[in-house]
């Protein structure tokens, strides 16, 4: 079976938004939308699920503060509780104010960096990754919607021409 898709290309984000809404209303499955910049509200119009990156970040922050607490408790209190300038090293809580700056920074460090790495992994971004542009113009000034074709090629093409597309292409995908 052939694996055909339609590339509907637009040159305005408002027209794109309308087209996405119409396509959803007509129950055509949108495979992907390529835009040169973030289009406000596009994810809602496409019905994408909200991101859970913030939840990940919160968990990473918890890990960061736990690690900082464990590390300083081990180093400063358990392993070698020296008297450094009269600071009380008898228990963690007694000397805690001195550890707070590190606990804070570690929390932010873990939360930020691990979230960014999670983002790269989930969106499959890394150096030397092959770019997936369907059309070079989509990084500059054009918007592209990709919709799968199932034996209804002509109907789909005329449907997308009706949505204000500047160009509608049928492509054989490998």
């Amino acid at each position, binding site marked *: 079976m052939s694996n055909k898709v339609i590339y509907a290309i637009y040159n305005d984000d408002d027209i794109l938004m309308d087209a996405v809404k119409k396509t959803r209303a007509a129950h055509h499955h949108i495979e992907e939308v390529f835009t040169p910049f973030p289009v406000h509200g596009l994810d809602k119009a496409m019905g994408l699920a909200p991101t859970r990156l*913030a939840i990940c970040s*919160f968990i990473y922050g918890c890990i960061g503060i736990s690690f900082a607490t464990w590390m300083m408790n081990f180093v400063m209190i358990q392993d070698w509780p020296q008297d450094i300038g*009269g600071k009380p090293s008898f228990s963690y809580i007694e000397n805690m*104010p*001195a550890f*707070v700056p590190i606990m804070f920074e570690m929390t932010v460090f873990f939360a930020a960096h691990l979230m960014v790495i999670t983002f790269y992994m989930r969106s499959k971004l890394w150096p030397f990754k092959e770019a997936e542009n369907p059309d070079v113009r989509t990084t500059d000034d054009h918007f592209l919607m990709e919709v799968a074709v199932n034996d209804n090629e002509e109907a789909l093409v005329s449907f997308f021409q009706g949505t204000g597309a500047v160009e509608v292409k049928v492509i054989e995908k490998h």
Partner: protein
Amino acid sequence: MYTFSSKLKTLSFILMAVGLLGIGYGFLNAPKDIQEVEILLAAESHGEHGAAQHEESKVADDAHGAAHHEQAKVSHEDGEHTKHLNHVLHQLQNKPWAALYVACIFFMLISMGVLAFYAIQQVAQAGWSPVLFRVMQGITAYLPYGSAIFFFILILCGLHFNHLFIWLDPEVVAHDELIANKASYLNFPFWIIRAAIFLIGWNLYRFYSAKNCVAQDEANDNLFYKKNFKMSAGFLVFFIVSESIMSWDWIMSVDPHWFSTLFGWYVFASFFVSGITTIALVTVYLKSKGYLEYVNTSHIHDLAKFMFGISIFWTYLWFSQFMLIWYADIPEEITYFITRIQLYNLPFFGAVVMNFVFPLLILLNTDFKRLSWVIVMAGTVILAGHYVDFFNMIMPGTVGDRWFIGVPEISSVLFFLGLFIFAVFTALTKTPLLPKRNPFIEESKHFHY
């Protein structure tokens, strides 16, 4: 137009009446002379506990006046005893005054926090908040009442009705070189004139800003809007200077031996977040009664973000002040925190839990920030937490270890809460709740996040 519901009005009157009764009870209940204190101390200390406490205070007294060492033993003990009784007498007599003072300054500064927030919104040309301007103006309508009562209390302090500010007592200043050295700044005439200038300045801004905002509704051009913009910018400059000095005068001078550089900011953060929380609570209330047509969950969300952010800002300053002094541990500075940690352990650390940990965990979630009940719950905890914060600032210097959150403290809060509700909701009935010709009002009506 908003109509003051009769239920809420009755509630505010009940609060004021109950508060007044409790305040009166607090004053009647305070001991009049040393004999009463002696009986009181004997009653509460059966043997060991009392002796230990007495010993402790003697140690403290010794530390204060090292010159009194090694005198004739009997007369010394007697002298120490009366000194101790006098000390406790002053603390107990201060209790109802300090309770009144804390509640009074707390509610007055809440309306100041709202006023500062309002001025910032004007100057920043915020696109989301104009639908809330009338709510903010309504809340700041408490300011004239609050500042009048507060100024009256300051005058009573100057007339020696109480011992809230020990530097106002010429007897103390004569024997205390540290305070005597500060007398060119800490003297009653200069102090009360400063207070008058600040209170008048704030009230003038409040009055003219609200007036221009209403005048803008009927105008054909944006002249009044521009006037308000310039006035707000000027006010913010005046405010930050006066706020800093205000915090030294009215709060830090309760402990005249102690000083801290970032104290003004710390006090500011405390009442600023309380003010924003009050805006959120009043907005949620008016919205639930159907008076704020254009306020949606996005506006509430923005207020909640401010509550969250400024709560963390308060904590940052709280910790910076505490940690710097704790770390260096210089004797003349650390006493401030030793008193608080030893005598006020629960309020001191409880305030951090209420003002930081609770809002941090509750208001972190975006969805939660849009739920009215979460805002009300978090807001209540934040306001209570900042009352405790002011309690921690004033009480150790005025009543010392004699603190308790009892009838005088609670009734003072109830009285000012009643007055606050009455003043605010009366003011809200005076003008329409939606500004008509604000240049940003259309954007604000359609604000969504």
